[in-house]
């Protein structure tokens, strides 16, 4: 057998072997149960979420298909030429409920859902700025797809979560669906409906010198309607848990113990409930018509109830300006 023939046969055999790979469901299931790690020590790093602007789409290679509309984007001020996109089509009843961005400017996202961010059907549109060395196209392991003339690939992760990924210039765009079936035609239609919009940076006047900024820190605006907008900033603390600072329009809907805070009385609640959506610890304070909440979600719930002092330091250090207008909240495309 000639060398070329032998090598081709060998490659074909390995591809066949690779095709026998198991589904990633079990691995994903275990990975989502995050391991317990040590608690973080608050350091005096200022969260730069205030007035930070992050690009929703840091590239200019895609042509606009319709006239720009007055919607959002998030960009880094150092890159003023950035363009953004917004979907002009979503499945029925899907409204926009969240816009967020990485504090370090590496990504930005918008989330659309029919019921809420934590239940029902959901689609997340995310734009990542490619780092040097990151792939600029399909990895060859997935089914290739073309999105508006750009190379992409289809990720069928499990029965509920699917992802469409494609590359445009120096950006990687992803559309992720949750509980949508069939997902592929829906995500392709959303992708092809994206249109160019002028840059309109997301600004969040919320800062806390006591909240560490990590590689996974983010900030955003969320809510069901423009009149119910909540601005937030969030940091994942070395795998130990997540701290989220919010300024919200209504008081948290549960009772708590009275604690001294910001020269007055705050409330503190600890729960060890196994319910996933419920935070472990919440500290909240009336800002006068708005409520400041500092929430800690521990990955290890046996560690809850130990962070009042740390949460208090964060709450004491928070500076919050007016909640930005968010006319897109609760709206269909």
């Amino acid at each position, binding site marked *: 057998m000639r060398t070329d023939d032998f090598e081709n046969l060998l*490659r074909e*055999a*390995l591809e066949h*072997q690779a095709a026998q790979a198991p589904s990633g469901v079990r691995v994903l299931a275990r990975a989502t149960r995050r391991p317990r790690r040590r608690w973080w020590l608050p350091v005096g790093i200022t969260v730069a979420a205030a007035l930070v602007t992050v690009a929703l789409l840091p590239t200019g290679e895609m042509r606009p298909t319709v006239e720009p509309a007055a919607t959002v984007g998030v960009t880094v001020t150092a890159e003023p030429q950035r363009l953004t996109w917004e979907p002009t089509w979503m499945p029925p009843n899907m409204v926009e409920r969240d816009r967020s961005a990485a504090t370090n400017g590496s990504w930005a996202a918008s989330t659309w859902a029919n019921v809420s961010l934590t239940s029902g059907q959901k689609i997340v549109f995310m734009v990542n700025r490619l780092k*040097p060395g990151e792939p600029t196209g399909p990895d060859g*392991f997935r089914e290739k797809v073309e999105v508006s003339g750009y190379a992409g690939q289809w*990720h069928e992760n499990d029965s509920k979560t699917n*992802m469409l990924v494609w590359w445009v210039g120096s950006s990687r765009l992803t559309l*992720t669906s949750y509980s949508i079936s069939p997902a592929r035609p829906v995500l392709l239609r959303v992708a092809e409906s994206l249109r160019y919009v002028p840059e309109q940076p997301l600004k969040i006047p919320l800062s806390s010198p006591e909240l560490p900024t990590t590689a996974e820190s983010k900030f955003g605006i969320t809510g069901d309607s423009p009149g119910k907008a909540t601005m937030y900033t969030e940091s994942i603390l070395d795998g130990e848990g997540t701290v989220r600072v919010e300024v919200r329009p209504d008081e948290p809907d549960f009772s708590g113990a009275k604690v001294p805070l910001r020269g007055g009385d705050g409330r503190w609640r600890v729960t060890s409930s196994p319910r996933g959506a419920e935070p472990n610890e919440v500290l909240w304070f009336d800002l006068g018509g708005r409520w400041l909440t500092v929430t800690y979600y521990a990955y290890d719930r046996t560690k809850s109830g130990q962070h009042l002092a740390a949460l208090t330091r964060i709450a004491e250090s928070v500076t919050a300006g007016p909640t930005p207008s968010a006319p897109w909240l609760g709206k269909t495309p």
Partner: protein
Amino acid sequence: MTFDEFLAQRLDGLLRYATTLTCDPHQAQDIVQEVVLRAQQRWSRIGKTEQPAAYVTRMVTNEFLSWRRRCRELVVTPSAMDAFGAVQADLTGQVDDRAVLLAGIARLPRKQRAAVVLRYYLNRTDEQIAEELGCSTGTVRSHVSRAVAALRVELASVERVREAL
């Protein structure tokens, strides 16, 4: 890139790579699961590297090599061998070259197998394979050359069986 996003994009590829290394989907899953959990714990550092995917791929390679060391012996599960087919026993059946090759790959020493997979599945260069395996390029060439020779012998024996039928 967040860890969740990394997983969503790379998990399937890691599993496919691990399956070619181990020749056993179950073992591949165990290896990738162990690697993923470790990567998750270290993601604050891994996520800052220039190529997190390459880093985690190397973790899979190392896990495969150390996994083998822990097992001491080359172990190919009965179910995996069944999938390859009983090449020598079934002289009357049609012998499939691909099955012969896969069975041969499963019998290769671990570093030879890793070198073959890196060369012919991931299309890595000698230099890249050397870096991945922590050896010289000369050693890589030796691994690949010996592995290919062994696989060719396997194929040739099947050819002789065919001719005899």
